[in-house]
């Protein structure tokens, strides 16, 4: 059964890893959002090559395991370029590239769910495409996008535990360190699981709050 003493002594050390997990999540979502928005716009252009490339990107990053992508970035980049990439850089790069693929789909679907008449009405008033997107379409699309985006953040938060295979001291890695030092697995891993769950619950609560707010303005 759970050893209370081990639990309490291991808690602060492992909880420190939550900050690292959060750092990976926040930075990756940030870069993923920028790249994902560009990819989503690329998918909707009338240039076939551009939209094809963007779809191919999404297909590749959704069709291969994130762990494989992470290892490719970490081990293959030094091999080809001679640049010794740090675990931090590799993690942020792989997670951002991966989440951009998902985020681009979320944004594309959100934009395309806005009634086509909105675009036509704006264009028929002589409003330029860029302004139409910025002031007419996107503010409406946000309603569809935000809740799905929070779910993507939740996914990324959990998936970021993969960074522990590169030795970064995140939540999971710290739990493993405690496990290896004291030959106990249950307490440290339970602590890690609980902390992940806690963070996910906070985000999920935030998501449901957002969803309610969005519906209210209908």
């Amino acid at each position, binding site marked *: 059964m759970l050893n209370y003493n081990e639990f309490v002594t291991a808690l602060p050390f492992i909880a420190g890893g939550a900050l690292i997990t959060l750092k990976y999540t926040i930075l990756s979502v940030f870069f993923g959002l920028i790249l994902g928005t560009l990819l989503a716009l690329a998918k909707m252009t009338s240039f076939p090559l551009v939209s094809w490339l963007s779809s191919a990107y999404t297909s590749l990053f959704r069709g291969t395991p994130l762990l494989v992508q992470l290892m490719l970035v970490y081990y293959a980049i030094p091999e080809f370029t001679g640049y010794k990439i740090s675990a931090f850089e590799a993690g942020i790069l792989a997670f951002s590239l991966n989440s951009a693929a998902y985020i681009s789909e979320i944004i594309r679907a959100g934009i395309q769910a806005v*009634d086509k008449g909105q675009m036509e*009405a704006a264009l*028929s008033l002589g409003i330029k495409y860029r302004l139409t997107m910025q*002031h007419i379409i996107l503010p409406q699309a946000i309603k569809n996008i935000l809740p799905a985006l929070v779910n993507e953040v939740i996914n990324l938060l959990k998936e970021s535990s993969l960074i522990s295979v590169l030795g970064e001291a995140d939540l999971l890695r710290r739990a493993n360190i405690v496990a290896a030092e004291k030959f106990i697995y249950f307490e440290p891993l339970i602590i890690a699981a609980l902390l992940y769950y806690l963070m996910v619950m906070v985000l999920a609560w935030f998501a449901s709050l957002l969803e309610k707010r969005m519906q209210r303005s209908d």
Partner: protein
Amino acid sequence: MISIEKLSKTFGNHQVLKDINLEIPLGQVVAIIGPSGSGKSTLLRCVNLLEIPTGGKITIENECITDPKCKVSSLREKVGMVFQHFHLFPHMTVKENVMYAPIKVKGISREEAGKHADELLKSVGLEDKADAYPSKLSGGQKQRAAIARTLAMEPKVLLFDEPTSALDPEMVKEVLDVIKNLAHTGITMLVVTHEMGFAREVADRVLFLDEGQIVEDGLPLNFFTQPKSTRAKQFLEKVL
């Protein structure tokens, strides 16, 4: 003046418009009627390039809009459109809907655009709804707001695409009254409509479209009392 020469439009294998030739003088009010699927809306949508014609030429005030060099956004400043389903911007108030394009497209100051919007909303009887969001309006009010939004750009040509077809019957009149007030004020109007009474009373000219062609083109009185083609006769028997 609008001049349309040999206009055709094809969607896939389906030819929606076949060789349309049409001259519309400045200020004329034209009712476009015909069975559904006859190409009425497509014809209208070609005039502001929401549909790109497959062939032919459209000229508005000596500017050939089907020429690839034509600046589409400046064309659309001159040609306003009112849609069946209004398409008001739901995240803006009625007044913001009316003010947005003049500010962003014409570069008019907020103050001036606001004043103009107030006048326009008054003219369509919506001065008390200026700060309401579209979701709080009835269908008829939405369409009147949409008309005010279109008028705010001071277009020379107004296109109405079945402006009353999505409305409850009791709201049709308030919208038609607004359109009637605009007729013969110098603005050229093309109105796709199923309101035969309106076409007869307000239009200077009726076009009857069937299967992508203009089958009849004449004065409302002649069209409604002595249609020449059998297709027009059959159509009128069904709707009148």
